[in-house]
């Protein structure tokens, strides 16, 4: 099955308050995460703009946050400033690992040393120690064509600090019932009033304004376009 290399980051969060700390800063329910489980969540600022999309994996004695390398510094700054008196320590293992996504719906065994986390019905996130991962056989162009077909947002295209999670296809990661987190008030208001504004769609090339296009493919593209808010609810 196709495998694409990812420029990801890997932060390790230790301490008694680690789960609650992440839960209070991101959109999905994290605090009940059990050892060996993972969940995707979005760190947002107080204007509900995205800081990073992360996969949060409970490894028993610590929590792993797999995010995107281009957002690593801003995420670290965001986290560091909010540790305050919490029992939280963060270390950075990005440089020790390689990251991949395999497109497959199959459940299979991976070689020893590779951590496989299913992050979508047809996507498995693979983390391997440096130089020991699988060979990537999908290039950037093929990955983008696949994403357009599947309406799958990606960091650097749809997912950016100009967007909130609803506008770039991450609404499923905004938990409807969890308690306070940074940006929650804005997201809850958008959802309850039906004023999401823009949404991610797959459209034919040339059928929308060029500045709405986030990923351009051969015949279709992904675009963040104005949507009929009431219908979107």
């Amino acid at each position, binding site marked *: 099955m196709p495998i694409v290399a990812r420029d990801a980051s*890997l932060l390790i969060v230790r301490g008694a308050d680690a789960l609650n700390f992440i839960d*209070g*800063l991101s959109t999905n329910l994290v605090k009940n995460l059990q050892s060996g489980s993972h969940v995707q969540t979005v760190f947002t600022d107080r204007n509900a703009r995205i800081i990073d999309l992360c996969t949060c994996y409970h490894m028993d004695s610590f929590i792993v946050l797999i995010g995107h390398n281009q957002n690593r510094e801003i995420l670290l700054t965001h986290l560091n400033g909010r540790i305050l008196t919490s029992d939280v320590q963060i270390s*950075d*293992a990005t440089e020790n690992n390689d990251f991949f996504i395999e497109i497959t719906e199959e459940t299979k065994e991976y070689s020893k040393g590779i951590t496989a986390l299913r992050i979508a019905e047809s996507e498995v996130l693979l983390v*391997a120690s440096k130089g020991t991962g699988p060979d990537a056989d999908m290039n950037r162009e093929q990955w983008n064509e696949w994403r357009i077909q599947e309406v799958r947002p990606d960091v650097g295209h749809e997912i950016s600090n100009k967007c909130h999670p609803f506008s770039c296809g991450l609404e499923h990661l905004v938990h409807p019932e969890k308690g306070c987190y*940074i940006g929650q008030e804005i997201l809850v208001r958008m959802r309850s009033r039906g004023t999401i504004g823009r949404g991610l769609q797959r459209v034919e090339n040339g059928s929308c304004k060029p500045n709405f296009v986030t990923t351009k493919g051969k015949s279709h593209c992904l675009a963040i376009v104005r949507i009929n808010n009431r219908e979107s609810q």
Partner: protein
Amino acid sequence: MDCGTCETAPAVLITKPEPVSVSLTITERATTMLTDAFGDDDSHALLVGVSSGGCSGYMYDLQIVESTEQDVQELNIDGFRVLVPNATSHLLDGIEIDFVEKLMGGGFKINNPSADSTCGCGESFS
């Protein structure tokens, strides 16, 4: 991850803000409520802290404690012992502790001139 690379990962250097010498005030209404709560017992103190979270990023955390293991600065405001953790002192300088009556009951309210914004429920600030 499962290969053990996490154990050798370097700790991220955390830049902690320098503690500031906190100045705070307590309104008359809040003083009345604290007098009711403390009575003549001067063994307890009001711990005014901040934790991360809430819609705006930080949340106030008021507790009545006998002591704390946190590194704190102790103030005497109108006869009350007030403890402020040094780790969050930069967020608390200049605050006013008030007490407000609401439909759902009364509660302490922090007025913070340094806060850029507060969330609708007034529990968190940034």
